């Protein structure tokens, strides 16, 4: 479903020879949950940007659900993004619109028939547990609730993969647990999740696959590690 083949990314204004990603290859299967970890500048966000094609590889190829980074341009990028859900650390909500208007925005601007919008928005807000606060403005919501609105907006188009860039970075521990529980539920319903995070405690507390990055390279992939059988005798 997602495939990185020898992907190198050098930003045009980067210091000579400094690559954000260096020869990165990995695959993510349908419905998988994958953590991307590593220090700041390791290349986590670059991987996510390559997925929703905000950036293009300098060399190599990114394939996502049949869309190739070497061939997909213009309208096809828009089509791909309609099948992805993207969530950021800073929520990226429109401050002058209610929670439901923020969610509906994702449908309105992609030409969804108007009659089907209210129902889909209500379902998405219910899924993230915010049905009762649909008319609230972002400033009237807590950080965790704002992030849930962002998740509802990402889910309203029924994405096959949810891309989350440090979604708990601005949240306290309780809100983080709530958001992570929500991510689990989303994943259980069949949506793949790719989540970049610094929160190693959160990562260690789960059984999900982890890709650890450093200096633009994958230094550890838990999928490659054979499970250790412990002799209990």
């Amino acid at each position, binding site marked *: 479903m997602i495939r990185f083949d020898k992907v190198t990314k050098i930003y045009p204004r980067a210091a000579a020879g400094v690559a954000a990603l260096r020869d990165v290859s990995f695959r993510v299967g349908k419905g998988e949950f994958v953590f991307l970890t590593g220090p700041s500048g390791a290349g986590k966000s670059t991987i996510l940007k390559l997925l*929703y094609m905000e950036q293009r590889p300098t060399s190599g190829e990114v394939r996502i659900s049949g869309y190739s980074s070497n061939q997909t341009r*213009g*309208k096809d990028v*828009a*089509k*791909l*993004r*309609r*099948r*992805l859900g*993207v969530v950021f650390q800073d929520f*990226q909500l*429109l401050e*002058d619109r209610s929670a439901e208007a923020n969610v509906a*925005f*994702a449908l*309105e*601007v*992609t*030409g969804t028939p108007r009659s089907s919008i209210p129902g889909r928005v209500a379902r998405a807000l219910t899924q993230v547990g915010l049905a009762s606060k649909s008319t609230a403005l972002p400033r009237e919501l807590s950080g965790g609730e704002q992030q849930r609105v962002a998740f509802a*907006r990402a889910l309203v*188009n029924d994405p096959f993969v949810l891309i989350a860039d440090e979604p708990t970075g601005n949240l306290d521990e309780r809100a983080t647990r709530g958001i992570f529980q929500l991510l689990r539920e989303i994943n259980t319903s069949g949506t793949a999740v790719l989540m970049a995070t610094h929160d190693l405690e959160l990562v260690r507390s789960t059984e999900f696959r982890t890709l650890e990055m450093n200096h633009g390279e994958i230094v550890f992939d838990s999928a490659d590690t054979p499970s250790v059988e412990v002799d209990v005798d």
Partner: protein
Amino acid sequence: MLAFNTAITAFRRAPLLSLLSITTIAFSLFAFGLFGLVALNIKNALQRVEERVEIRVFVADGTTSERLAIASDDVAKYPEVLKVDVITQAQALERARVELGEFKDVFDSQFLPASFDIRLRPGSRDPATVRRVVDRLREFDFVDDVRFGEEWIAQLYRLRNIAGVAGAALGLAFAAVAVIIIGATIRMAVLARTKEISIMRLVGATDGFIRRPFLIEGSIKGVLGGVLALVLTYFAMRVLEQYLHFETAFFDRRLALLGILFGALMGFLGSAVSVGRHLRRV
């Protein structure tokens, strides 16, 4: 329709910024309009003076009236000629009596020569064309003298050329200032919605979809700014008329409509450039 609704919603969401954009567009077009009004009135004044360009061909004594009639018909067929009046000796005397009233008693015989008074078509009143027509007229054997104010026509055309070049240069400068100010104003409106644009792209809106409401919004602002500029120019003209005590011409319906369309075009292009640049960047 959705793009139009989105554009109208954008007005409602940021009324102050929209009003500021419209006012800025209006004032830059107002400056352009005032210049246009001055240029229009100078052009009209020069045209009125130009209409007085006349060639008078004095005819030798003894030329028969039949000869004059035939020659007058020939001259009337010149492509440059608008109108030919044949003035007989009796008419010349009568005209002199009217024009020079205090000497009317002196004029007691037909001592003034007959003449052709020739008016040229607009566009054929420049010194070179006048000179060419005069040269042709001199070829008639009955012509005694031709007067056409050569010096005066040359001066008039020099003035007209200077006014034309200065007008074009100033007009371009005013238009450029209007374009820059309108472009900057629209850019401000686009920048105010940077976040909205990036979210639109993120959730899969096409560039065309994102661009359309901005283009409509820019055009509407341009039209409203153009109408406001027209109203301001009209009132400025009325005030000037009152203080300077002279009548000025205002833009006719066609020019007024052109002004408003210019505003719309500026709004449209300003938006297209600003959104285009923004979309390439984000």
